[in-house]
């Protein structure tokens, strides 16, 4: 990125598949706006000159209005609005629906830095290395306030909201270094919460990854799974009290008390932090609360591990086989 402060830039760099779509929309909008602004300006200038007051006694005739004209300037803007709406919604749809073959990366925002965690185990701060030509899906979380992950060269932005995961995706088209900004005001050093996206050729990216630590994220999650004693209740055996987790991710879950949910990242997150909120049908709400006990990084590792669990005959246990446990009494003080 040319970082000269003497030139007058008019247009941001275009470095993702999405950027081209947004820019086309931008030019369309500019053309529309220019047309209407010039139209109004022309009306004003022409009328102002042509009908300028020539004598203080001018007494122009009364004109009440014109229904045809009113219809014209109601219907034409309405139609153009609908076209614009459709176009904008289409681009938005593309933006919010990542393709299936994405490469996943975890992001955590905190006052005032961005932390990235690759599935291969590499961590970075205020930098994010990605390969060119590959759809990347980011799952974003925050440790404190709302932040917003914004890469102008990709024309993408997503708020990072406390208490949940949000996701975004992009596919870089050009190797280079691009600005990463926090776009949602987050406190004193908000404008210092900046970083760079480093887009590399796939081979360079592999080389860069290989320079990182050994041990991928799923194996870190496996370690935590044992350390936090999740394994006691979630593995087949005499002590199993909770649902089996292999093959759970992305599947619908029947909930106790009716209703169902999809076991997406947000469901898994909630089920770890505040497990009794939405319990799988057939199980008792006995799992302890982990809110405040596990960090965002540990959550990333655990969820990655759970999603990577292989489905084998011995770790899938029917709910009926779960031994009954004493129900927790919620009403007492």
């Amino acid at each position, binding site marked *: 990125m040319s970082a000269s402060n003497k030139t007058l830039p008019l247009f941001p760099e275009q470095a993702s598949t999405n950027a081209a779509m947004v820019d086309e929309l931008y030019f369309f909008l500019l053309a529309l706006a220019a047309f209407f602004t010039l139209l109004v300006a022309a009306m004003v200038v022409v009328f102002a000159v042509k009908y300028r007051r020539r004598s203080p006694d001018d007494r122009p005739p009364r004109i009440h209005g014109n229904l045809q004209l009113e219809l014209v300037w109601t219907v034409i803007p309405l139609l153009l609005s609908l076209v614009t709406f459709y176009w904008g919604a289409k681009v938005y749809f593309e933006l919010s629906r990542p393709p299936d073959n994405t490469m996943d990366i975890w992001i955590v925002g905190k006052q005032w830095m961005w932390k990235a965690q690759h599935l291969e185990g590499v961590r970075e701060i205020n930098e994010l290395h990605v390969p060119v030509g590959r759809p990347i899906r980011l799952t974003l979380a925050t440790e404190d306030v709302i932040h917003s992950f914004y890469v102008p060269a990709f024309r993408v932005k997503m708020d990072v909201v406390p208490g949940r995961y949000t996701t975004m995706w992009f596919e870089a088209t050009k190797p280079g270094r691009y600005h990463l900004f926090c776009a949602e005001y987050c406190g004193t050093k908000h404008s210092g919460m900046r970083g760079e996206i480093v887009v590399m050729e796939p081979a360079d990216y592999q080389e860069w990854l290989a320079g990182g630590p050994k041990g991928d994220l799923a194996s870190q999650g496996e370690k935590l799974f044992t350390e936090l004693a999740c394994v006691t209740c979630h593995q087949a055996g005499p002590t199993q009290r909770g649902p089996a987790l292999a093959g759970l991710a992305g599947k619908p879950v029947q909930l106790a008390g009716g209703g169902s949910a999809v076991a997406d990242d947000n469901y898994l997150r909630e089920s770890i932090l505040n497990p009794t909120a939405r319990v799988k049908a057939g199980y008792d709400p006995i799992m302890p609360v982990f809110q405040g006990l596990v960090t965002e990084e540990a959550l990333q590792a655990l969820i990655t591990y759970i999603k990577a669990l292989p489905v084998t005959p011995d770790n899938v246990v029917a709910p009926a086989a779960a031994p009954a446990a004493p129900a927790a009494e919620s*009403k007492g*003080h």
Partner: protein
Amino acid sequence: MSADTVGAVTHAGHGGPVGTDPDGHHDNPHLAHHFDSEEQQTEATQLGMWVFLATEIMFFGGVLTAYMIYRMKAPVPFAAASHHLDLTLGGLNTILLIVSSLTMAFAVRQAALKDRRGYLLNLIMTMILGTGFLVVKYFEYSEKFTHHLVPGPKFQWANLGQAHGAEQFFSLYFMMTGLHAIHMVIGLGLLTVILIQGRRTTFPARFKGRVETMGLYWHFVDIVWIFLFPLLYLIGRHYHGG
């Protein structure tokens, strides 16, 4: 459109009879200087109260929205927390308020009939019932304090998984009933004013209009409770899990 044309005509029609001096001042002591007729003045006061009540609806609407959204997000803890409200006291308060609305309506009627005694009696009844409501509310609140159900550092809830939801319930409970109670206190203050004025008045149209306007406010505060009572006390009563 027609109603407003009528309004414009009244404006003109009643401008004359009241009598205005050349400076545009009328000589009616019950009429503020900028109105043309008592009727216009009463209509203005009542429309003012209706507009104010529209504001009030939006005010309570905000917190009711928050309540409904959180109730949907955490139905189980909300239902469990709702069990800790005293249905008997809540029900008693509902009856007190409904009866007070009735006596208020009687007070308005007696004022229109220029029956001073009936007016004062009904007004006093209304105020006693309203005060009774606040007394009962006081006992309900103090019971929450002794059982550590007041949100904040001293809040206690046995089932940790539901503690946040339950605390949220009580936060919104205190917010909504507290705002309602403040409105009751303001209402009692307003009734005190028309009670004192009622001892001397000759019941001119302006006074009757004022009593009616106060009645509107009082009925509104009652109606708010009619919404709060089922939302806070009744929904989810059948649920006994936890």
